[in-house]
């Protein structure tokens, strides 16, 4: 059991290290060149976490034009409230715009609140087994997320697709408005792995110079 854990940990660390290095190189050189919107539409994968995370990300989604279509929402298996909120938003979009498509997918949570760190590694790997094939199937142009644990395996899967040359996926992370002084755990990880990392308070912009500060967007 311990050997499996150790091997998984080493394997995962190696992949993450490799992804980070490749990603940094790709980011520095080619970020500005990848413009999926040139085709006229952008396929989006939206990570909706529980409660406040969903409310925030849906406010952001409301502001986007109908070109961001189709929209694939990913929620955690145990999340019951987000689905209703998503459907509410999408129904109102249907009234406003023609030909809008959306889907909702469920994946296992990578970490429950207060879950121990030793078991978190295993549950994260478990989530990766679901998020990898999902991202591969959907091949979105863009992933939009704002901090729930579910976004980490999804973004890692997106990175892997990019590193393997299968599909380049823009990763946009918007840190929650609740994070004023410190980043969330997902934020700390994705700060290095995302293409665009938005913060909503000036303190965070100072501490994390690679981030983008547009003011409060939610």
């Amino acid at each position: 059991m311990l050997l499996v854990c150790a091997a998984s940990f080493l394997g995962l660390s190696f992949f993450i290290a490799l992804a980070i290095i490749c990603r940094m190189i790709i980011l520095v050189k080619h970020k500005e060149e990848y413009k999926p919107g040139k085709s006229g539409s952008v396929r989006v994968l939206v990570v909706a976490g529980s409660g406040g995370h969903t409310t925030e990300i849906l406010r952001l989604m409301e502001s986007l034009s109908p070109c961001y279509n189709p929209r694939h929402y990913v929620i955690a298996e145990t999340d019951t409230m987000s689905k209703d909120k998503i459907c509410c938003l999408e129904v109102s979009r249907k009234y406003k715009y023609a030909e809008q498509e959306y889907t909702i997918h469920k994946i296992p949570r990578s970490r429950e609140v207060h879950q121990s760190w030793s078991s978190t590694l295993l549950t994260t790997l478990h989530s990766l087994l679901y998020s990898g094939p999902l991202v591969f199937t959907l091949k979105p142009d863009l992933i939009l997320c704002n901090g729930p644990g579910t976004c980490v395996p999804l973004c890692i899967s997106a990175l892997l697709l990019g590193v393997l040359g299968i599909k380049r996926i823009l990763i946009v992370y918007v840190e929650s408005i609740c994070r004023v002084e410190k980043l969330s755990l997902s934020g700390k990880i994705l700060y290095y792995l995302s293409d665009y990392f938005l913060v909503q308070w000036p303190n965070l912009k100072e501490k994390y110079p690679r981030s983008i500060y547009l003011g409060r967007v939610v």
Partner: protein
Amino acid sequence: MKSAFVTVGSTSFDELILSVTSNSVIQIFRELGFEKLVLQIGRGLVRPEPCTFGDFTLEVFQYKDSIAEEIQRADLVISHAGAGSCLETLGAGKPLLVVVNDQLMDNHQLELARQLHRDGHLYYCTCKTLADTMKSMDLSALKPFLPGKTEEFAIFMDRIVGLEKVD
């Protein structure tokens, strides 16, 4: 009828419920001209009995699907430090007093309440300082809380994905 709404969201915050229903704080409500107090007690074990005494009414409930109506009806909202409650109240343009639960450890939601207090959008206290804060606060001095700039986000996104129109 001037009314105050107390909300603890989905948490339990018995200390707050006890404080706002204490004789001294009810007296302060009356002195400030309030005639009604509505308590949303969530998971709390302390459940005051709804009642009317003289010209003062007390209403109590655990949860509702949406507290938007209660917030709309209130002249003052007293809330735990939950981001959802704070943003919903400020978005409705209502004066807000946040009471911090110092029994909770590592409450990251405190960061937001503290910052909004620094920016002059709400008042901020603990159960121990509730009475003094209520007596000294000036609700008219609170600054309006403007909604987030979602259109800035949309413009940013259009630019980075290549959807923006180039003239």
